[in-house]
């Protein structure tokens, strides 16, 4: 069974540009989460999809971030326009259910560098 995959693995862009990150969850997992780790800080929750609906987006830092999950399969996270403080590693995770007993499986992350 394939794990959670993320694309690209690295992205280097200039301030003001747009970047789109993609996450493919484990097949059959309705729950998809985005997290990020900025330099020197903890990994922080961004948002949670159940199928194509946003269940919780309380961690999204501002309106420059837009997450979508059309069709309830893969998800994209777009940053527009990117700022220097957006640099970090963006992780995606998926789980079969959202009860506490269900494990969230994480992808390898996308390292975003904004110059």
């Amino acid at each position, binding site marked *: 069974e394939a794990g959670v995959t993320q694309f690209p693995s690295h992205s280097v862009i200039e301030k003001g540009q747009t970047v789109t990150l993609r996450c493919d969850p484990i097949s059959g997992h309705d729950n998809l989460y985005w*997290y990020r780790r900025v330099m020197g800080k*903890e990994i922080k929750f961004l948002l*949670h999809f159940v199928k194509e609906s946003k269940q*919780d987006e*309380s961690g999204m830092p501002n309106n420059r971030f837009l997450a979508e999950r059309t069709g309830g399969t893969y998800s994209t996270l777009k940053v527009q326009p990117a700022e220097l403080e957006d640099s970090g590693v963006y992780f995606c*995770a998926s789980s079969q259910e959202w009860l*506490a007993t269900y494990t969230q499986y994480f992808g390898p992350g996308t390292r975003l560098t904004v110059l």
Partner: protein
Amino acid sequence: AQSVTQLDSHVSVSEGTPVLLRCNYSSSYSPSLFWYVQHPNKGLQLLLKYTSAATLVKGINGFEAEFKKSETSFHLTKPSAHMSDAAEYFCVVRGNNNDMRFGAGTRLTVKP
């Protein structure tokens, strides 16, 4: 609110010696606690989880953790370190909305 604190940012051990990575938690109810590991250029891998069953939880690769309510701790241990254990380890508590709340991470170095 649920949170975890990892008490050491770096731990260095010699191969074959015990590993102890410390984590304290704060929770208003019985928490769900996890340890994840991240090897270089790899994703976060679940080592073990506690969800109010047995207080001593055994995980993969010989790791285990003990939930101690009286001490609000969930320390990760391994009897004998291997070179392949060198990685960054994260203690995690599940939040009210099922989001995962991470500690700052502990980087484990294993010396030959």
